């Protein structure tokens, strides 16, 4: 029988929304406060949902310790207390939470071979969140 198992992780990072493709004025118009040259930060919540068969022996879809280790190593350690703009993944891409969510999905895809990565949800604040699934 298939079920999903989800886990929420917290990390704090800074970013600045700015693209060289637009003028300074157009950047300010597009990104408002988020274009502040000095950047700003958030406490992000990264929610990871994986799916698969519930093992009859353990009653589990995945060993939570394995999931935790993988997400810690590939995501939390990489981004926690960092500036997202300086990560190579955002060298050519604005670190909006849409792009951050997609980047996290890409880092975890293939890293958990025993289960299916169903979705990654990133909450930037309590009031906004973004979701990415295998459809892109």
């Amino acid at each position, binding site marked *: *029988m298939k079920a999903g198992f989800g*886990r929420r992780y917290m990390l704090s990072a800074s970013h600045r929304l700015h693209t060289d493709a637009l003028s300074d004025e157009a950047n300010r118009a597009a990104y408002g406060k988020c274009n502040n040259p000095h950047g700003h930060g958030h406490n992000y919540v990264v929610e990871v949902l994986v799916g698969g068969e*519930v093992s009859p022996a353990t009653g589990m879809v995945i060993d939570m310790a394995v999931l935790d280790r993988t997400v810690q190593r590939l995501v939390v350690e990489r981004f926690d207390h960092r500036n997202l703009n300086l990560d190579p993944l955002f060298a050519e891409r604005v670190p909006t939470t849409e792009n951050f969510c997609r980047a996290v999905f890409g880092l975890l895809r293939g890293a958990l071979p025993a289960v299916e990565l169903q979705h990654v949800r990133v909450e930037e604040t309590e009031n906004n969140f973004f979701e990415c699934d295998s459809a892109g």
Partner: protein
Amino acid sequence: MIELTRRATFSASHYYWNDDWSAEQNESVFGRCANRNGHGHNYTLEVTVAGEPDAVTGFVVDLKWLKDVMEREVLSAYDHRHLNLEVPEFSKAIPTTENLAIAAWKRLQPALAAARGAQLRKVRIYETPEIFAEYRGEA
């Protein structure tokens, strides 16, 4: 099609143990959860139903009715209980969050199937605010 979700909370105790395994293997796989004295959680049950809003009432389902179904089918059996010792479906199956989501679905499905229009879409159970499992009726 509109999805509607209702949330409820319950508190219960449990432990993880596979009778086919040695004590060492249970402790190795389940860690602190294998403590036979049990431990407990404040669970959150989220039930999502889907359907078209009724042309007259504007409801997908009557929320009071849904609350009563959740109370009768799930909370009355799980709340302030020891899941392993007092809930029949966990006399054999281990009461992991995954199995709780599946078991809650099985309890809710017949009552919701009897309702006109709305279908059970998803059951999600939070064991803590950071850990949840969900079941969508997949075989």
